[in-house]
């Protein structure tokens, strides 16, 4: 093949898993074959697992350069943190 097939990201929910987890990526010419390849590469054709494949180009990621603005904006604003409550003794699993 002169040029490699597009890249796909693979998310798998294990048989007893609660959510789909990103497990890796692979190349495939289209979604159908991406699913087959993912089954071979990441699940060994186990039954009872669910697979999602997403073209890597469809994913927008947050930029590491903007980390401060994205994830660390409010440390100096204590009023944004829900730490001013008195939890009654009877509430066990809050």
């Amino acid at each position, binding site marked *: 093949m002169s040029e490699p097939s597009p890249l796909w990201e693979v998310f798998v929910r294990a048989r007893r898993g609660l959510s789909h987890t990103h497990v890796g990526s692979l*190349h495939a010419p289209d979604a159908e074959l991406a699913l087959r390849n993912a089954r071979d590469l990441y699940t060994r*054709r186990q039954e009872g697992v669910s697979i999602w494949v997403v073209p890597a180009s469809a994913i927008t990621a947050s930029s590491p350069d903007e980390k401060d603005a994205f994830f660390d904006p409010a440390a100096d604003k204590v009023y944004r943190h829900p730490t001013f409550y008195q939890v009654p003794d009877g509430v066990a699993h809050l």
Partner: protein
Amino acid sequence: MTGPFDFTLRLGDDALIAAQRLGEWTSSAPEMEEDIALANIALDQLGAARLLLTYAGELEGAGRDEDALAFRREDREFRNCLLVELPNGDFAVTMAKLFFLSAYQLPLYTALAGCADERLAAIGAKARKESAYHLDHSSLWVKRLGDGTEESHRRMQDAVDQVWPYVHELFTPDPAAPVDAATLRAEFDATVDAVLTEATLTRPETSWAPAGGRDGLHTEHLSYLLAEMQVLHRAHPGANW
């Protein structure tokens, strides 16, 4: 000669030679993903070959195990169909071969799973699931290439034309066998037609139907394949590994 031994040997040889050809692709496939898929299928075929040849050896009762049958027979003693011994060619030829083989093996193993012989039924039940995967994989590629670019369409059609004459041998009637292959032809044709149509390919109309594999009369390709496969065992007969 259509005893259970001959029948089991035939199926085992088909799977063994198919595995050997697919193994040749290792590290040479168009993509890493396809490398893994082809090796996967080769391992499935080899697994089926081992079960079938072991059982064939027991049926024969001459003390030959799977290794003796695989490594100590000449090409004239092999009973595989001609289809599986054909060279790999380009990727389209390999997919055409795998597609026709699995479209034959799936109904064969499915029928075998319900036969009276318990061992063969168990082998059929196991191999059937793997064949379904092989058929799925090769069908997808036949469609991708057939309905892909002009070049891939040309290559896929060439491959189908080249391999097609060899499928007729698979359905030689054998009423005495546990599963008469002739009864599988209708299902095979239906599977093949549906995929070829979707792939925008045409089924060739030729009357040429080479055969002989079941009688040990092979193409010139088999002895080269065996020379490579058997070299070590023949150099050190009786060694353990």
